């Protein structure tokens, strides 16, 4: 269980995340949705321990996140973050060196499925290739929590199918999967729950079954309902 309690992050003149409280349960796939600058990435980075909150806390299995919890959280940033000298193989070795739950065999096999050269220099990869590489690295870990920030960014339709398959294969009963994306329809095919965030505030946290059965709308409809006016006026 990953819990956010009154989590807040303020920069000098901007509140990126404002008093967000929510609980993510094992066995669920969450779609974190919101327009650009709504605080999705900042929330994920705080949960990954990369950004320090101004107030509030993040708890994993009831314990505040700490050094040990980094070995249970697999975070994939939307930006490329590899060292310039790295090849895809170096990146795999790096993960294998630091994460006991990383399977180099699984990583190599995923790269092969994705048609990526393991000996290729990452700096020579296109944005789509780098996105696939990040997915392969992150999902080759056997973590408790996977947080994927914009996993479909810059990916063509066919590669998206490969990534969707990889993501679904990582989803298990004891895992939490959280993804952010602008591609709402894409997310609707994978997610079991949705988290709507706007201007750092949690607007709605809802299960997709409830959304469909009780409110009679799809996730995309809900997205339009919540953000449509704001995006038009913006």
């Amino acid at each position, binding site marked *: 269980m990953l819990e956010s309690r009154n989590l807040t992050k303020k920069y000098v003149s901007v509140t990126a995340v404002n008093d967000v409280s929510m609980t993510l349960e094992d066995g669920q796939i969450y779609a974190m949705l919101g327009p650009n600058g709504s605080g999705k990435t900042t929330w994920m980075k705080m949960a990954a321990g990369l950004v320090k909150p101004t107030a509030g806390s993040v708890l994993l299995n009831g314990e505040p996140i700490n050094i040990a919890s980094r070995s249970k959280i697999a975070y994939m940033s939307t930006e490329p973050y590899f*060292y310039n000298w790295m090849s895809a193989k170096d990146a795999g070795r790096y993960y294998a060196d630091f*994460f006991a739950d990383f399977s180099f065999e699984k990583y190599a096999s995923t790269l092969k499925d994705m048609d990526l050269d393991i000996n290729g220099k990452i700096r020579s990869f296109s944005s789509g290739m780098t996105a696939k590489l990040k997915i392969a690295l992150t999902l080759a870990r056997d973590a408790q929590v996977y947080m994927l920030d914009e996993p479909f960014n810059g990916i063509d339709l066919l590669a998206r199918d490969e990534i969707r398959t990889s993501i679904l294969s990582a989803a298990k009963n004891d895992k939490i999967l959280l993804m952010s994306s602008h591609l709402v329809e894409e997310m609707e095919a994978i997610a079991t729950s949705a988290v709507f965030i706007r201007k750092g505030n949690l607007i709605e946290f809802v299960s997709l079954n409830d959304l469909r059965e009780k409110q009679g709308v799809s996730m995309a409809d809900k997205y339009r309902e919540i953000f449509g006016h704001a995006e038009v006026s913006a």
Partner: protein
Amino acid sequence: MGKLLKYELRKTGFSKLIMLIITMLAQAVFMVGISSHKEGTVLTGALLLFFIALGGILVMGLQSMLTLHRDMNTKQGYMLFMTPHSSYSILGAKAIECTVSVLLAGVFYFVLGIIDIRMLFKGFGSLEDFREAMDFLTNMFFGVTLFDRSLLTAFIFNMITAWISTIMLACFADIVISALLNGRKYTILLGIALFVVLSVSINRLINLVPASIGEISQETLDTMNYNPYSFDLSQLSVDVDLSGFIRGTVIRGCLHLLCAAGLYAASAWIMEKYLSV
């Protein structure tokens, strides 16, 4: 810690390779001069080696600092800070990498210098000339001739500890600025400014410890035209009692170490509590 260290060495590996190649080129010039008995070429090679040695050690220190800065202020930092290691381990690995790199570079250039000087005097003089040259060099660099090994050891200890404390001070300045102004432009300049201010202040404090502690014979004072805060050992003779200077130098070295330990603890704590990448 071992794996962190391995990657810290890897990050700075390229610049070290470049320094090695440049050194080898200068060495080649020097050796061509020796073998062809051309004094001008020998001098050119020797001067190149001298400046490359000084510059190389400085570049290694700067490269380590630049790597730390990049790790804290660019997305590459995710690679480091998402690993299950505390800031104490991360910073410890960086400090060890920088210290070891610079020390090894120092030993490398010193050994290379000795080999080259031996070659030079075999080609152009005698081994007695070599010994005199060694005395001259140690006197020039450390302010002491080889005859007093204890003082030379104390000076080297002081130099190493001063270097470690300088590294930790540079880390501290960069970490403070990065934690306060994460990702903003010109943070590196502010970090340098903070480093200079702190460096001057700390060195002034450490230099409050007299260069010589304990009883000093009148003969020593007369010989040196004694000033308690700075001294010129090049005027000393073999008979002078140097124990006071050794004590003072060692105490200053210990203060540098204490300072480095304090800065390390403070830097890692700031990283742990406040640094966002």
